[in-house]
């Protein structure tokens, strides 16, 4: 008989609040990302695992969906279970292809065939096929070895060096569980995702990987910022009590989510929501929101099968408008670069990508991509209240160039008799130069991108734990810039909103209101909490 191991406390930074109790499980780094494929047998195994994972998630989704939704998911299941679908992929793997390449190549002709069908009902099936392709591709490009998740249960605390967005999204977090990483900061992409899905996340874990024994019991405390390995009974019962209290709190907040938001003086405050990927909106009620404040479009560019065509984009934008049911939807043009590289588009080898060719700078280098996006946006604008916001604007002439390109595509659409509308164009203010020289801009609206504005003004990276204290959203310098932008908006009759993590932070809200802001864009998951904070609860 061995004595119970002593409780071990590892310090960390809480990047998404919450508590998790479970067994540690090491993330398995997959090295196959940029290197060539492994042996055919290994690639075959990876595709098999990704297909099995996709089938499991389809079955789980179908259980939760209504009869019609379930039947549509059943179609995807039937496809995956059909050897005809996968046979070409196995053949390509045997010829030395990677699992991802083989899978994409097997799906491409099918999708093209349906896209080219003359019957709209069959054309619409191309969407199902594309969704299925992405579902399996997500599993394959995940940073986790898919097979490793085979019998994973909810109450697991995943630990590792880092985790990419696709790896995070491949996980099933509905049962609970948490994530603890040695690297990354509170504003890294995985942290954004974790907060949006209310998954407790610790970053900056102060220990070596070897000190995290696979399978050991642990408590993840992302209210404080520590990982407790081999918890004592007292620690466990404390964690269980906190879990229960958090569940009650969430329930209470949810009750107040539909209320109208207003300041103590009775002035209305608008709360829009951020959207990273429209697939997350399924089953969510737009009722408590004022619309979509920032719909990011990067998700369209990360799918298998290359850059998205106009139809794919148009359908995605229309889906956002349909969800919003008449409420305004602000779509941000592609904001690649910086921490969001896109293969084949963003430059490689920049020594400082955050100060490099990103956002609108990149879009203006690839006007053909921007043109496609603007065409899709102008067409979608005919279907609802759609607005377009342009990221990383530094100079007024960048906006002028976007307007000129928009005027061109609108003229083309008019000539071709395609339904369209020229959407309002807004500027995302995240470069200090644009914030300081705000009077030089004439835009239809302004959206303050607080994540980038703060890191540029404070010269403190969003994901660097060492300068986290400098990353202060309500530093006088930031509030002063916000006041200037609000004043310019008032003078020109243009709406000013603020997005980014700080928008959902109750601690920042009083200062932002004081600076004159009356509109915010927050993650849907944070809406109830921030409305409760506004109501003084």
């Amino acid at each position, binding site marked *: 008989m061995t004595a119970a191991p002593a409780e071990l406390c590892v310090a960390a930074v809480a990047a998404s609040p919450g508590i998790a109790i479970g067994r540690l499980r090491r993330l398995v780094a997959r090295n196959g990302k940029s290197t060539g494929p492994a042996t055919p047998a290994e690639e075959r195994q990876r595709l098999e695992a990704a297909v099995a994972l996709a089938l499991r998630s389809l079955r789980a989704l179908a259980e939760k969906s209504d009869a019609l939704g379930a039947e549509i998911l059943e179609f995807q299941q039937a496809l995956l279970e*059909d050897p*005809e679908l996968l046979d070409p992929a196995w053949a390509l793997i045997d010829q030395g292809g990677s699992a991802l390449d083989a899978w994409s190549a097997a799906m491409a002709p099918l999708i093209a065939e349906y896209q080219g069908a003359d019957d709209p009902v069959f054309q619409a099936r191309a969407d199902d096929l594309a969704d299925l392709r992405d579902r399996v591709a997500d599993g394959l490009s995940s940073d986790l070895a898919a097979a490793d998740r085979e019998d994973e249960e909810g109450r697991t605390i995943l630990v590792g060096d880092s985790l990419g967005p696709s790896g995070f999204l491949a996980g099933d977090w509905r049962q609970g569980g948490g994530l603890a990483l040695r690297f990354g900061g509170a504003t890294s992409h995985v942290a954004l995702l974790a907060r949006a899905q209310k998954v407790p996340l610790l970053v900056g874990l102060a220990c070596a990987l070897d000190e995290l024994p696979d399978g050991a019991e642990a408590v993840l405390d992302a209210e404080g910022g520590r990982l407790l390995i081999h918890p004592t009974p007292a620690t466990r019962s404390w964690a269980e009590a906190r879990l229960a209290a958090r569940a009650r709190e969430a329930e209470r907040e949810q009750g107040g989510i539909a209320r109208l938001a207003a300041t103590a003086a009775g002035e209305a405050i608008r709360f829009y929501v951020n959207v990273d990927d429209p697939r997350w909106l399924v089953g969510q009620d737009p009722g408590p929101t004022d619309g979509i404040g920032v719909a990011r479009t990067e998700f369209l560019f990360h799918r298998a099968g290359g850059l998205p065509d106009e139809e794919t984009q148009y359908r995605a934008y229309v889906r956002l408008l349909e969800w919003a049911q008449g409420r305004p939807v602000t779509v941000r043009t592609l904001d690649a670069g910086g921490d969001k590289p896109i293969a084949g588009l963003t430059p490689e080898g920049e020594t400082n990508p955050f100060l490099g060719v990103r956002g609108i700078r990149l879009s203006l280098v690839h006007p053909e991509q921007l043109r496609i996006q603007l065409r899709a946006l102008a067409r979608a604008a005919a279907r609802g209240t759609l607005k377009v916001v342009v990221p990383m604007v530094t100079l007024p002439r960048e906006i002028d160039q976007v307007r000129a390109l928009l005027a061109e595509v609108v003229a083309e659409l008019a000539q071709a008799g395609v339904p369209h509308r020229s959407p309002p164009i807004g500027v995302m203010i995240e470069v200090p130069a644009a914030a300081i020289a705000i009077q030089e801009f004439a835009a239809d609206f302004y959206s303050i991108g607080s994540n980038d504005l703060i890191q540029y003004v404070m010269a403190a990276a969003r994901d660097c734990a060492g300068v986290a204290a400098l990353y202060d959203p309500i530093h006088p310098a930031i509030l002063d810039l916000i006041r200037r932008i609000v004043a310019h908006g008032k003078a020109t009759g243009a709406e000013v909103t603020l997005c980014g993590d700080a928008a959902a932070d109750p601690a920042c809200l009083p200062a932002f209101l004081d600076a004159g802001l009356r509109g915010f864009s927050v993650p849907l998951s944070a809406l109830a909490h921030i409305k409760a904070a506004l109501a003084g609860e």
Partner: protein
Amino acid sequence: MSNLEATTPAANAQVTVTPATGLHARPAVKLTKLAKTFAATVRLRQAPDGPWVDAKSIVKVMGLKLKPGAVLDLAAEGADGEAAVAALVALAERGFDDGSAG
């Protein structure tokens, strides 16, 4: 594919595609799922001379892109071939259980 050709079917029948939107995803899933419950080799084609395809493959059945009013030849070989064809005919007669318009 070649093993599906040229043999004399043990059981066969003709049915008409009735769903208003053709044999699209949901009706096709119903058909292939039902076909898979039989051990017999089941195939179908668009009458009178379309290519025969495996009725258990959703990829193949959807690939025919059958529109409303299309007439299908069904054929099955194997011990339960007769039962398979009878079941598929019954499904077609029920309009592929396609209650919805989409």
